[in-house]
C-alpha cells in the first residue's frame, strides 16, 4: 500500500504542473491531428490525383491517351495548345506534355517523349502513382495501335486487390495514432519521469524518503507506479480521443490491447526510472530522455512506416521497446489479432522492463 501512496503523490505532482499537462495531454493530439491531417483520411487508392495534361496537338492518339489516363481515377485538366496555363494552388502540382508530332511519331514507329513536370509541392507517392498511370496509358495506347484496339473491357487478366485482416485501411489518423501513442508515452516517462527523480534527489526528497520506514524496493516500486500511473492516464486519454474524436477501431481484443499497453507502460516507466538514476541534473536527464526517446520512436516505427527502412535496421530496431509496441498494436489494430498474437510482444516488453528496473534498483542513490 505504501508504494501506492508514493505513486499517487507523483501523479498529483505531475497533474499540477501546467507544462506537463500540455506535453503529456495536449501536444500529442496537436501532433496526431497535424500529421493525420497531412496524411489524409481516406483510402489512398480512391484518392483522385491531379494531373494537368498540356496537349500540344489534337489528334486521335493524343485524345485516346488522355482517355486512358482519365480511366485511371485521375483528376485530369487538359490545357490545349494556345490556351493559357492555369496557375495557383488549386492547379495540380504535376503536368505532362503531349508534344506536337505525337501521332506522327507513333505512326512512323519513332521515339517520342512526354515531359512530366513536378512542382516542389508534389508528393512522392502521388508522383509514383502518376508514373505508373502514364506507363499504363502508354502500354494501352501502343498495344491498341499494334493490335487494333485494346480497351480495358478486353483485358484477359484482372487484379483483385484487398487488405489482409479485413480491417480498415491504415491511413490518416489510423496511421498516426498508434505510433504517436507509443512515442508520447516514451517521451513522458523518459523526460518527466526521469527528471522528477533527479529533482527529488537534488531537493533531498529521496533522502527523506530513505529515512522513512520504506524499503528501497518499496520506494522504487512507488516511483515506478507513479510514472506508470501518469502514462496510464495518458494512454487512457489517447484511447478515448482515438475512439471518440478520430473514430479509431482499436481492434477486436480489448484484453490483448490492455495487456500490451500495460506491459509497454511498465517497460517505459522502468526505462524512465533507470534514466533518472543515471544523471545528476534534471536538465541532463530530461535532455537525454528526449533524445533517446526520439531515437527509439523514430527507429521503432512511430514516425514513418518501418518498411521503408533497410532490412538490417528494421531488425535492429527490435532492441527498442517502441518497435515491439508498434508491431503489437499493428497486430491488434491492423490485423485484428487476439491476446495470443501479442503474447510474445508482452513477454519481450516485460523482460526489457524487468532488466531496466533491476539496473535502476542497483544504481538508485537516495542521498
Amino acid at each position, binding site marked *: 500500500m505504501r508504494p501506492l501512496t508514493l505513486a499517487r503523490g507523483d501523479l498529483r505532482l505531475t497533474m499540477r504542473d501546467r507544462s506537463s499537462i500540455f506535453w503529456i495531454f495536449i501536444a500529442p493530439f496537436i501532433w496526431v491531428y497535424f500529421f493525420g491531417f497531412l496524411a489524409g483520411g481516406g483510402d489512398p487508392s480512391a484518392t483522385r490525383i491531379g494531373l494537368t495534361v498540356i496537349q500540344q496537338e489534337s489528334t486521335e492518339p493524343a485524345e485516346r491517351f488522355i482517355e486512358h489516363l482519365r480511366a485511371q481515377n485521375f483528376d485530369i485538366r487538359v490545357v490545349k495548345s494556345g490556351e493559357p496555363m492555369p496557375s495557383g494552388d488549386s492547379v495540380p502540382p504535376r503536368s505532362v506534355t503531349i508534344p506536337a508530332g505525337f501521332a506522327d511519331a507513333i505512326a512512323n514507329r519513332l521515339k517520342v517523349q512526354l515531359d512530366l513536370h513536378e512542382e516542389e509541392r508534389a508528393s512522392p*507517392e502521388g508522383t509514383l502513382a502518376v508514373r505508373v498511370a502514364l506507363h499504363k496509358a502508354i*502500354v494501352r495506347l501502343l498495344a491498341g495501335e499494334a493490335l487494333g484496339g485494346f480497351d480495358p473491357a478486353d483485358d484477359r*487478366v484482372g487484379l483483385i*486487390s484487398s487488405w489482409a485482416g479485413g480491417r480498415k485501411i491504415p491511413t490518416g489518423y489510423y496511421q498516426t495514432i498508434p505510433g504517436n501513442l507509443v512515442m508520447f508515452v516514451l517521451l513522458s516517462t523518459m523526460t518527466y519521469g526521469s527528471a522528477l527523480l533527479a529533482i527529488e534527489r537534488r531537493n533531498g526528497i529521496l533522502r527523506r524518503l530513505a529515512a522513512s520506514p520504506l524499503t528501497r524496493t518499496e520506494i522504487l516500486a512507488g516511483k515506478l507506479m507513479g510514472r506508470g500511473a501518469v502514462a496510464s492516464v495518458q494512454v487512457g486519454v489517447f484511447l478515448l480521443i482515438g475512439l471518440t474524436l478520430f473514430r479509431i477501431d482499436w481492434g477486436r481484443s480489448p484484453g490483448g490491447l490492455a495487456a500490451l499497453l500495460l506491459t509497454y507502460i511498465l517497460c517505459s516507466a522502468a526505462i524512465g526510472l533507470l534514466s533518472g538514476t543515471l544523471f545528476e541534473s534534471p536538465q541532463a536527464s530530461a535532455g*537525454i530522455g528526449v533524445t533517446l526517446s526520439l531515437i527509439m520512436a523514430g527507429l521503432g516505427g512511430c514516425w514513418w512506416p518501418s518498411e521503408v527502412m533497410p532490412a538490417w535496421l528494421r531488425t535492429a530496431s527490435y532492441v527498442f521497446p517502441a518497435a515491439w509496441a508498434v508491431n503489437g498494436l499493428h497486430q491488434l489494430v491492423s490485423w485484428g489479432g487476439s491476446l495470443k498474437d501479442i503474447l510474445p510482444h508482452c513477454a519481450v516488453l516485460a523482460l526489457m522492463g524487468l532488466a531496466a528496473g533491476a539496473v535502476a534498483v542497483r544504481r538508485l542513490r537516495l542521498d
Partner: protein
Amino acid sequence: MRRILVLVLKDLRRRLADPAGFFLNLSIPLAMAGMMALAFGNSGGGEQNAPQLRLVLVDLDESPISGMLAGASQNPRAAGRMAVRRAATREEGLDVLRDEEFAAMLVIPRGFGQALLGSERTELELVKNPSENIMPVVAQQGAEVLALYLSAGARVLGDEGPRLQKLLVDGAGWNDAAGLGSMIATLYDRVDAAGNLLFPPIIEVTEQAETKQDAGGGFNWMSWMFPGMVVMGLLFTSLTQMRDLLRERDAGTLRRQLASPLGAGQVILAKVLSVAAVVAIALVLLLTVGSLAFGLAWGAPAPLIATSALLVLAITGFSAMVFALVRTERQGDAFGGVLTMLMSMVGGAFIPPQILPEWLRGVSCFTVNHWGHEALRALATGGGWAQVGAYLPALAIMGVVFTGLGMTLLGRRHLRGTL
C-alpha cells in the same frame, strides 16, 4: 561599449563552463537528422535508396505460364528491388505476410495458365499487409502493370493460345510440322508488330522535378531536412540560454548589477549578446556537422555569413521576447517549447512546407523557422545571393522587431525589479 564587451565575454565564459546543457540542446536535432540518414540514406529518396519490395508469391496454378511469371522475379534487375518468398498455400502465404512483415502476397490462381492461353478471363489476387502503408501500394501498382502486360500478351497470342497450350501443357501437336510452322510465323508477325511499338515502348516519359539540387547537381535529401533541424535546434538552444536571465534574477545578480555604473539597457544588451554568441557557436557547430556527416555544402562565404547573422539575430530576439513575457523559468520552458514545436511543425522541420495546405503555408510565413529553413536550404542547394536574397529581408525584419521588442520589455522589467 568596452563594459558591454567585458560583460558579454564573462557571461559567455560562464555559459560555456558547463557545456552539457548546450550540447544536449544540439543533440536533439543531430539525433533526429542522424536517425533519418540511417533510415533513408543521406540522399533520401532516389532509385538507389528505394526500399526493397517484399512479396510473397503463391503459385496455385503450377503451370509453365505461372512458372515463367514466378521466375521473372528472379532476373537480376528485379531481384535487386524485390525480395520474393514463395509459399505453397494461401494460408502459408498469409502467415509469412504477417509474421515476416512482407508488403503483399500475389496469388496466381489455379487454372491461370489455361485461362490465359484459352482466351478466357482470369484474375490475379493481391493481398496487402494492413500494417504497412507505402510498399503495399507499390506492390498494387506493380501488379496492375503486370496484369496489363499479361493482357497485352494474351491479345498478341490471339487464337493461337489454345494451340500453344496444347504444345506447352499437354505436349501434343509437336509432330504437326506444318501447323507449328504456321503458328510460329503468325506469332512472329504479331510479336514483331507489337514489339516495334511496345518492347521497349516508343513513348518515353522524362521527368523534370522542381526540387532544388545540391552543388554537385544531384538531389540531396538532407539539404531539405537538415536546415529545418538546425533552426529548431537553435531555437531550443536560445531559449535555454535566455532562461539564464530568470535564474540570475532569482539569484539576485541582476539586481546587484543595477547598482553598478551600468544602465538597465546595457545589462540587457550584454545578456542578449551573450545568448546570441552561444547561438552563433551552435550554428557553426551544426553547419560543420552538416558538412562533415551529411556532405552538405553551404555555398559562398558572404551569403552564408549574412544568413547566419540574421538567423542568429531573429532567433535570439524571439527567445528574448518569450522571456520578456513570462514570469518563471517553467513558464518560459513551457511557452517557448510549445511555440518552438508548433513553429517547427509548420516551418518545415518535419515535412516539406510545400505540401502543407495553403492556409498553413500562410501561417508558416510568420515563423522564424520558415525563413531560416528556406535561406539555409537555398545555400545547401548551391544558392548564392540571388537565391537567399528573397529570405534575408524577412529574417532581418523579424530579428529587428523581436530583438527590439524583447529588449525593451526586458529592460522595463529589469528597472521595475520584476525581471
